[in-house]
Every structure is written in structure tokens, then in C-alpha cells.
């Protein structure tokens, strides 16, 4: 079974600054996917970024980028130029390549962007 750990329950950052959210995971699989989801107060789950484990290059989506360290089983999310709209709960998630595509989530990090 996979486990995903987010050790930072809450974080805050000043608007326009950069913040990094941490995530570690444990798996015996070699092929898998990792995700960061954002959940604003509306409760909607929004996909932020996806990383395929067999790709060494770190994924980037506009102001969001990841630092994927496969050997260390670490998958952190960096948000650059933080905006007030980035305030949300962020979940790290794991998906096995050979599975029925179910996700295993971390406990979440509540990020608050301060004006």
C-alpha cells in the first residue's frame, strides 16, 4: 500500500513571494504518477500539476513547479509570485500506474497568502 505524507498542516506566505509545500510518499512501485490538487473554500478539487515518475524532468505549469526526487520519494510544490487566489488547501496525491486509477492523498497543507 502507498502512503503520502504532508508534514506542514498550515503555511503562510506574503503576496508576490515564493513558497514551497513538502510531500513525501512511500511505495514499492516503480511506475506511478504524482499530483498536487488545490481545494479553495468552494470545496472544488482542482488539479494543479502532474508528474510522471518515469520522467526525470520536473513538471511546470505557469507559476507552479515541482521538485521531484524519485530516490528520496519526495515531491514538493513551489508556488512563485503567490497571489491571494492561491489561498487554499493543497493535497499531494499518488496514483499507481497499474491500478484502477485510484488516488492516495496526503493530509493536506492549508496555504494562506497574506496581502
Amino acid at each position, binding site marked *: 500500500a502507498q502512503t*503520502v505524507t504532508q508534514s506542514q498542516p498550515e503555511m503562510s506566505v506574503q503576496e508576490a513571494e515564493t513558497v514551497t509545500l513538502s510531500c513525501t510518499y512511500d511505495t514499492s512501485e516503480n511506475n506511478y504518477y504524482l499530483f498536487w490538487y488545490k481545494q479553495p473554500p468552494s470545496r*472544488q478539487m482542482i*488539479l494543479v500539476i502532474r508528474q510522471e515518475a518515469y520522467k526525470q524532468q520536473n513538471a511546470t505549469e505557469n507559476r507552479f513547479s515541482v521538485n521531484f526526487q524519485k530516490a528520496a520519494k519526495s515531491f514538493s510544490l513551489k508556488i512563485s509570485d503567490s497571489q491571494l487566489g492561491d489561498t487554499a488547501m493543497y493535497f499531494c496525491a499518488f496514483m499507481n500506474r497499474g491500478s484502477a486509477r485510484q488516488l492516495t492523498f496526503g493530509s493536506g497543507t492549508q496555504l494562506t497568502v497574506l496581502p
Partner: protein
Amino acid sequence: DAGITQSPRHKVTETGTPVTLRCHQTENHRYMYWYRQDPGHGLRLIHYSYGVKDTDKGEVSDGYSVSRSKTEDFLLTLESATSSQTSVYFCATTQGPENTEAFFGQGTRLTVV
């Protein structure tokens, strides 16, 4: 937005009563899932379906059952609701084995009193 609709959006029920939550999708996605979200636990998988009438248990399946008689509908039933099942429930779908993006419904807040 993917066409995933959960009903009801909010429900308060009494301990011991049966409750059914419905997830309806218009995307013809093969896989459907039910998760529950609780503080400090993130989202945890209850049950999932990989096709019509094909379902399997997730991490926290005790006290829950599911049914999928049509591609578009996935029902979650609490046979006898308990206070520990007070939670926010999310339905999600993925298109198929070669697709990894999950699409989520808006969530159902269930309170068992």
C-alpha cells in the same frame, strides 16, 4: 468542467437511518470513485468502480456499500448511518486505463446526528 453532479449537496440525518448519495456523470468515464474527506486525513477512498456492476473496496469501506447499474450513475449507501460517518463525500471519475486525470464532483456534506 467535467459533468459530474452529486446529490444531495447537503444532508442531515439521524443515527441508524439509511442514506444514499448519488453521483451522476455525463462524460462516459469508465472509472468512478467515492472518497470521504476528514480533517487531518485528506481524502480517503471508500469504494470504486471500474465498469458497470464492477466495484471494489477502498481503504475505508466498512459501513458503506455501492452500486453501479449504469455507466453514468454510482451510488453510495450508508446502510445504518453513524456519527463517525459525518464527513464530506466526493465522487470522482477517470476516463480509462490510459488517462490519469481525475474529475471531481462538488462534494456532499453529510451530518449524522
